[in-house]
């Protein structure tokens, strides 16, 4: 469904953030992107919806080359791609409901959105989504009154109300505590499964990625150095991605946690 062909990004400073990424994401697959800070994870997902302009190569979503689109066509293409952010990126001074509905901006005209007269079907869907993530009672609260986990749930609703084919998720758990991180990761992967959504999830926490995601791609210096299932991620592979470190604890911990969760359930 999504193909990246020799996707390249060189910043004006000369930093080569992406060096010819080739990647294929089939429909409905959730994929975790791991790698050290500065490896180009954020740049890669931003090159797909062109919040960052790639300097070379192609990103093809359902046969449409996103890198070639003009501004109008790009806006229509962005509606197909929901994005979730590390710092939630909610509009702090708007209510939860307004934030969720802002996911429909690509579908409604300026004056309708300015006067907040969204179609009833959008409002219904917003309530359904808020109910699904357990925030129905917060609909009328301002976004800056919410806790981190609650904000990220609103961010998820905003991305999903776009009815996207693909989710681009940038460090969804980096600002959250361990428990909330797991809840958010579980929620994202569950929702993707329910809706048959493909997703690319940037994530720092290797253990968390192994726990929830069936395919892991490792990025180092803007190049893919690992692509495989979580259990293929050995300590040699982690060393290749991140550099020399004692990885045994990380891998063991994951296995321990897996059994914990199974036991709890």
């Amino acid at each position, binding site marked *: 469904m999504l193909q990246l062909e020799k996707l390249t990004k060189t910043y004006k400073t000369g930093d080569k953030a992406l060096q010819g990424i080739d990647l294929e994401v089939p429909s409905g697959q959730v994929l975790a992107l791991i790698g050290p800070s500065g490896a180009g994870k954020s740049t890669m997902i931003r090159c797909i*919806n062109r*919040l960052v302009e790639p300097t070379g190569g192609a990103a093809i979503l359902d046969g449409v080359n996103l890198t070639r689109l003009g501004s109008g066509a790009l*806006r*229509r*293409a*962005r*509606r197909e*791609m*929901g*994005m979730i*952010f590390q*710092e939630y*990126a*909610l*509009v*702090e*001074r*708007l209510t939860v409901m307004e934030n969720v509905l*802002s*996911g*429909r*901006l*690509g*579908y409604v005209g*300026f004056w309708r*959105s*300015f006067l907040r007269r969204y179609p009833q079907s959008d409002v219904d869907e917003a309530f359904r989504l808020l109910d699904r993530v357990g925030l129905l009672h917060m609909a009328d609260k301002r976004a800056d009154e919410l806790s981190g986990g609650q904000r990220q749930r609103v*961010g998820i609703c*905003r991305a999903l109300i*776009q009815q996207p084919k693909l989710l*681009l998720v940038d460090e969804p758990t980096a600002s959250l505590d361990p428990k909330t991180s797991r809840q958010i990761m579980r929620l994202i992967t569950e929702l993707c499964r329910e809706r048959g959504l493909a997703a690319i999830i940037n994530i720092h926490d290797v253990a968390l990625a192994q726990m929830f995601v069936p395919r892991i791609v490792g990025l180092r210096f803007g190049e893919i150095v690992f692509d495989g299932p979580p259990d293929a991620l050995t300590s040699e592979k982690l060393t290749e991605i991140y550099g020399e470190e004692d990885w045994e604890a990380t891998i063991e911990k994951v296995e321990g946690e897996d059994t914990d969760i199974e036991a709890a359930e």
Partner: protein
Amino acid sequence: MPVLEKEGTQVWRRRTASETLIRWFGWLIGVAVFMLCWQRISEATTWFFVWDAPRIASDIWNRATPPRWEYITQLGRPIWDTLNIATLGTLIALCLAVPVAFLAARNTTPSALFVRPFALLIIVATRSINSLIWALLLIAIIGPGVFAGVIAIAIRSIGFCAKLLYEAIEEIDHGQVEAITATGASRWQVMAYGIVPQILPAFAGIAVFRWDINIRESTVLGLVGAGGVGLQLSASLNVLAWPQVSLILIVILVAVVISEWVSAKVRGAII
């Protein structure tokens, strides 16, 4: 090196010895220049007038008190004009300052090379000329009266409001703009959802702050014939009617105190 070895322990100083010396020397030069300037000013002053000042001041004080309270009946209309000049001028200025600010802010300007310098020029040009001088010019162009005062206040305020507003625009959280852009929103929708909510508190603060300043500025516009309570002030000064002058000053003081109270309340309510 600010870290010295002394008897085996490491001693940390904020500055090295030579840096300290340079600093002392700098202070010495500063004091010397100040003394020199003081001496020059003293030579150019006619000290007789200075020694005489307390006597003259007390003389004027005696003439000005008590204020002529019954004159207040003639001040209602001018003070109302003054308030209107300030309020209308601020409203017009805000309407014009918003587009200028968006053109001047680095992150919203359509072209940093052509449009931005033009917007900055508007800001500098309107800001650098005092409203009293604008009023003098405008009275020559559109004749004396309240309207000239309104326009003078408006022009003077554009630069001030636009400058503070464009600084607020440049300081917004870019993440929120990115998130709205990623939904496929148009340029105007990104503005309405990603930028405007973030600058709204700053906008309200700037508006009441400038209104507050404009009330003070509009009280003097009458001195050059641009309407308001300043007209009465200059008339009273010209005929040396000191009790009327003191009453006008009291009225201006009360108006300014009230406006400060209102703007403090409004700012408190928004933030």
